[in-house]
């Protein structure tokens, strides 16, 4: 931990408390029974820890019916990703691997050592036979779902790897952007949802609303794409769609120049607006989850995304470095997520931050306001605000006292007279006081002159300075 982190936590005791609470008191809903696990499965979980610590923790808390399936699903996609990401693998080797990865899943003993030495998850593929071995032990329905998604994603990745235009110029239109995010994130959501429904942890109606599933993935992916602008640019990758950034700037790589700050902020806010349009559907999706461990698993990334979105919204640091929500805040969020209501409250909290940062200088000012309103209205549709007790009481009192509208109008007139009388009395009294003061010789002209010059206090009284020297 860096000193700056420690200082930050000392200044934010709530976050420090959240970290401590999470580390010490947090009780996992489900825990793996390591003693019952085969050595190969234990090795798989070690890989999970190595590839993603944060994901690993939430996956391991999933209910037993899903824990292993989701863990292996994650490792398989990570394996696919490791092949796709590695620019040292020639395309003629890479493409067939990507397109046939679903078949590879059933090749006992298959491993791959063709990754470059710098590739982070190289070892996973070197020992991929362990994953294949455990995959064969999954229920058939789960294997079919995982294979199907692997096939679609592998083909999607191969298409993008072949697409020279995409690799040089990045994403063109907003529709391309949505499609790209569908391949890298929406598909995963599709597979996970099918696994949840298969184990009866989610409402099967979710499968009839693919746009809800897609929004779950797109909200996460798009928010990360905004956050990672600088990191991706330094790696010569561009994911912000041209259709958006060309409205604000001519050259993508100049967004981080200090002189382009205003344009860059407007651009990032349009990117955030695009992402925000998925938020209500994410909440809608979460309403379809029936199991607590699955709810946590699906909701935690979403609340992290809305927190990240609030952080990156009109934040110029995004163009200079990688911004991240502080660890303490992340722990707070994990502690607060529990049910749909608290998740909606978290969304509202961060939407308020976005609303506060929104400025009329931004061409999308009103559109952002409307997008926030849409999420608020959706939350209202699941958790309606009770009718204001005050207004109801007022009306009851009105009915009880039997005050008719005419009487109310008369009362209003009376009120007007009263306010008028007060204003008149105050004016008359002030007038008299000013007149008396003037009679007694008050010099309002000098007072005004001094006030005009900005002298709001009387000059300091200094009798010595005032006395003429000659008389001493």
């Amino acid at each position, binding site marked *: 931990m860096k000193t700056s982190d420690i200082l930050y936590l000392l200044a934010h005791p709530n976050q420090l408390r959240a970290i401590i609470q999470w580390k010490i008191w947090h009780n996992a809903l489900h825990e793996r029974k390591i003693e019952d696990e085969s050595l190969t499965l234990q090795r798989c979980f070690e890989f999970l820890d190595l590839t993603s610590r944060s994901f690993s923790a939430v996956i391991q808390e999933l209910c037993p019916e899903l824990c292993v399936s989701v863990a292996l699903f994650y490792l398989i996609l990570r394996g696919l990703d490791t092949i796709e990401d590695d620019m040292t693998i020639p395309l003629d080797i890479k493409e067939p691997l990507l397109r046939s990865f679903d078949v590879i899943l059933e090749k006992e003993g298959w491993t791959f050592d063709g990754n470059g030495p710098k590739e982070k998850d190289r070892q996973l593929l070197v020992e991929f036979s362990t994953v294949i071995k455990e995959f064969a032990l999954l229920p058939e329905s789960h294997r079919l779902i995982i294979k199907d998604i692997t096939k679609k994603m592998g083909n999607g990745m191969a298409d993008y790897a072949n697409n020279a235009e995409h690799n040089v110029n990045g994403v063109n239109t907003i529709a391309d952007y949505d499609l790209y995010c569908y391949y890298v994130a929406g598909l995963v959501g599709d597979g996970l949802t099918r696994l949840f429904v298969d184990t009866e942890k989610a409402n099967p109606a979710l499968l009839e609303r693919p746009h809800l599933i897609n929004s779950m993935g797109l909200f996460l992916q798009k928010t990360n794409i905004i956050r990672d602008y600088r990191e991706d640019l330094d790696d010569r990758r561009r994911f912000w769609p041209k259709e958006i950034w060309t409205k604000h700037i001519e050259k993508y790589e100049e967004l981080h120049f200090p002189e382009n700050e205003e344009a860059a902020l407007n651009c990032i806010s349009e990117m955030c607006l695009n992402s925000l349009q998925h938020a209500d559907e994410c909440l809608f999706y979460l309403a379809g989850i029936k199991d607590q461990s699955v709810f946590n698993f699906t909701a935690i990334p979403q609340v992290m995304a809305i927190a990240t979105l609030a952080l990156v919204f009109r934040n110029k640091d995004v163009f200079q470095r990688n911004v991240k929500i502080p660890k303490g805040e992340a722990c707070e969020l994990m502690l607060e997520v529990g049910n749909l209501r608290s998740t909606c409250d978290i969304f509202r909290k961060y939407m308020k931050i976005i609303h506060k940062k929104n400025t009329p200088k931004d061409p999308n000012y009103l559109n952002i306001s*409307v997008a926030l309103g849409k999420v608020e209205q959706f939350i209202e549709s699941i958790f309606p605000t009770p009718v204001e007790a005050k207004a109801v009481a007022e009306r009851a009192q009105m009915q009880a006292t039997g005050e008719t509208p005419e009487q109310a109008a008369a009362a209003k007139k009376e009120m007007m007279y009263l306010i008028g009388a007060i204003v008149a009395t105050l004016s008359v009294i002030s007038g008299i006081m000013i007149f008396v003061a003037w009679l007694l010789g008050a010099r309002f002209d000098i007072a005004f002159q001094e006030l005009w010059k900005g002298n709001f206090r009387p000059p300091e009284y200094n009798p010595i300075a005032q006395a003429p020297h000659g008389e001493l």
Partner: protein
Amino acid sequence: MASTKRQPLNNVLIVGGCGFLGHHVVTLFKEHHPECQIFVMDLRLTNIQPGITYLEGDITSRESVDAILNKVKPEVVIDTVSPVHGLGEAIYYKVNVDGTKVLLEASSDAGVKAFVFTSSASVVFDGASDLISVNESVPIASPAMDPYTETKAIGEKMVLEANRKGGMFTLALRLSGLFGPGDRQLIPGMLGVLARGQTKFQIGSNENLFDFTYIVNAAWAHVLATEKLIEMSLDTPKTPKTPDGEAYFITNGEPCYFWDFPRTIWAIRGHIAPFHIVMPAAVGIAMGGAAEAFAWLLNREPGLSRFRVRFSCWNRYFDIRKAKQMLGYQPLVKLYDGLVETLKWFDEQEKMEAAKKGQ
């Protein structure tokens, strides 16, 4: 939307077709139903458009209405009549209650098939409670906020009860927060704040959502409602699934935080307040009261009133899923685009006035 095949219509009579809403209804019927004959009945004929027959008439007089119905023989009557604010209770009652009754009965007797009534979303507003994503299941406010909405609610009730009587299908559209070209209230009020240099002030937290509706979208709902009613047949029994005899909230479906709306107007006009002074609602109401008292003493129109202050602090937005599902309503113009169009119109008006003065 506009490219789909539309239900053909015969003669359409738009009552109040010279008004703010009415003339936009005329424009849309002309555009989407070139096959039909459009007639306008109004008390005073203004906003004249080519290709439309204009007839002077008074809805509070049965003879006047009968004479026009005899001449026009309409298949559709659209009642967009709305007396301007501030005329007093007697006028509201005469127009909104008596007038609606006359028009309704005369239309039914004349064999009109579809009757569309323009109502106000304020009929469910008691003047005190927030309206938070309210739908049509909410009852009419009792007592009403003011005589205008009270009489509008009575008119609406009569229209809905008259459904299917004499073979005429009716429905009511409850509009909220209208703005657009020809607007005399909302946008001029907000431009007035800009002209007086009061844009820095914000009353309330600005966390309240408000539904503003672009006039073209409101007019569009009238076209869709007409088409739905014309498709109806008396053989289909009235169920909650049939569109007739129902009231619908119509908005842009884009509620936004109240102050964000005027600030967008000012930004389009090139003004952005450097900072905002936030006043709690209670302070605002006290100031509104003082301003009203001053204005009353000086016999002038107050720039700020308690009603305006409360207006800016209310949640007032609606759930319009019923109109979307039953009428196939989708706004034609986005909120922001509607605002840009509206301000263009105001710019032109100001230029024209300046030119007139220059002459």
